[in-house]
């Protein structure tokens, strides 16, 4: 990974015509950043990965949630978003109780950012850990490399939600927490996968 440029809102990302990635906007044919973040520029698109931010549901996101309420035909699910999100009762065979941990895929987000979800899975036991949502891509890594390493190193069963919530069960959850802290602290630096790998190895040896 090459060194990345830090930009602030309103900074020029590129003057070339490219496809727009996340957190950029165009004005007079030039591409500007809309957030404090790092520039990711490749052959045909320009994007900024922000360093802070809240979760806004997008179509196709896999999220971890907690059942919050029940209405006539839907369950209200908390997914770390400021907007309400629902899963239809048609998706579920058994009745869900309040507090049940689920994972689901967002299949529709309406104009006021309310999410409808499908492909529901229910989880029993385990813990929910939380990470800043913008740092989730780093927790997963390139084609899942970081996640595989975390699963290997800690022995936990892990499911990472795009919303910043991570469900984990079994294994060494405290070690997982420490590793996630490390990722969150150094998410904007390069060579993170190796660093976390070394960290997990070191801990294993010391046990």
């Amino acid at each position: 990974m090459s060194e990345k440029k830090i930009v602030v809102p309103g900074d020029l990302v590129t003057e070339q015509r490219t496809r727009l990635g996340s957190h950029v906007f165009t004005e007079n044919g030039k591409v500007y950043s809309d957030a404090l973040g790092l520039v990711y520029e490749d052959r045909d698109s320009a994007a900024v990965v922000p360093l802070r931010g809240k979760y806004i549901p997008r179509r196709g996101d896999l999220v971890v949630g907690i059942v919050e309420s029940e209405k006539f035909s839907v369950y209200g699910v908390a997914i770390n978003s400021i907007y309400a999100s629902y899963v239809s009762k048609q998706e579920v065979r058994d009745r869900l109780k309040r507090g049940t941990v689920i994972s689901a895929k967002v299949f529709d987000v309406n104009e006021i950012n309310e999410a409808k979800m499908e492909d529901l899975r229910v989880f029993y036991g385990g813990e929910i850990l939380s990470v800043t949502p913008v740092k989730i891509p780093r927790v997963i890594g390139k084609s899942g490399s970081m996640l595989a390493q975390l699963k290997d190193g800690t022995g936990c069963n892990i499911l990472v939600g795009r919303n910043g919530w991570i469900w984990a069960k079994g294994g060494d959850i405290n070690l997982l927490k420490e590793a996630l802290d490390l990722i969150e602290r150094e998410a904007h630096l390069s060579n993170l996968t190796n660093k976390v790998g070394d960290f997990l190895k070191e801990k294993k040896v010391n046990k």
Partner: protein
Amino acid sequence: MASKKDEKIEYVKNGKRLDGRKVDELRPLKIEVGVLDNADGSAYLEWGQNKVIAGVFGPKEALPKHTQDPYKARVKFIYRMACFSVPDRKNPRPARREIEISKVCSEALERAVFIERFPNSSIDVFVEILDSNAGSRAAALTAASVALADAGIPMRDLVASTGVGKAGGEIILDLNKAEEDAPDAVDIPIAIMPRTEEIVLLQMDGLMTKAEWKKAKELGIKGCKQVYEVQREALRKKYEAAEKPEAKKNPEAEKPKAEEKKTAAKKSEKVSK
């Protein structure tokens, strides 16, 4: 008293002002980012004698519900002066002046933030003036804009603000209290989005000729751009600094290791028993 009024103060003498600054020079400006742990974004700013702390919370659900707008977010800006921020104690009740400043600053920030991306929500900006000495609304807006960027809220540009005006017949940048109290003083707080030079806040009290106004506007925009550079530097510094302190983190990481060893030893003891 009359004799005092008759005394003529020279506000600009040999190109230098009362406090030794040049005509187009700002007071020393310092910004620190991420000072509040519980806020989503925050900034502390010192500008001359002004001391300002800004915290951003949100976007979150706008409450009470009738304040929600399904087309855009609301930027709730609360400007508040601490009781001890001025020489005489200030009544802590929000006064006419504070409510006005909150309103104009909120409108200035609404122009910069992509509010249409957060329907029905509220972005709360709290700015506390700890010490004030002229130009506190410019300081508040400057700090708030940095705090918003720190919170990761999408914006078209930062908002940079400064004061510009006239004292003793001269157009000067960033007036301090003594200059603001000049008999012919004109005070113009101005805020711009530096990339486009779009003016998002402009107020004025006093009288000026057209030529003077043109000069003041130019000087104001120049001043705002200087402020903008300080804002950018402060934001970048927070993350550039984080790249180095590797050495500091290691001792932290080692502490729990020792504890874990103990617990692991205890566990093995239990197993052997």
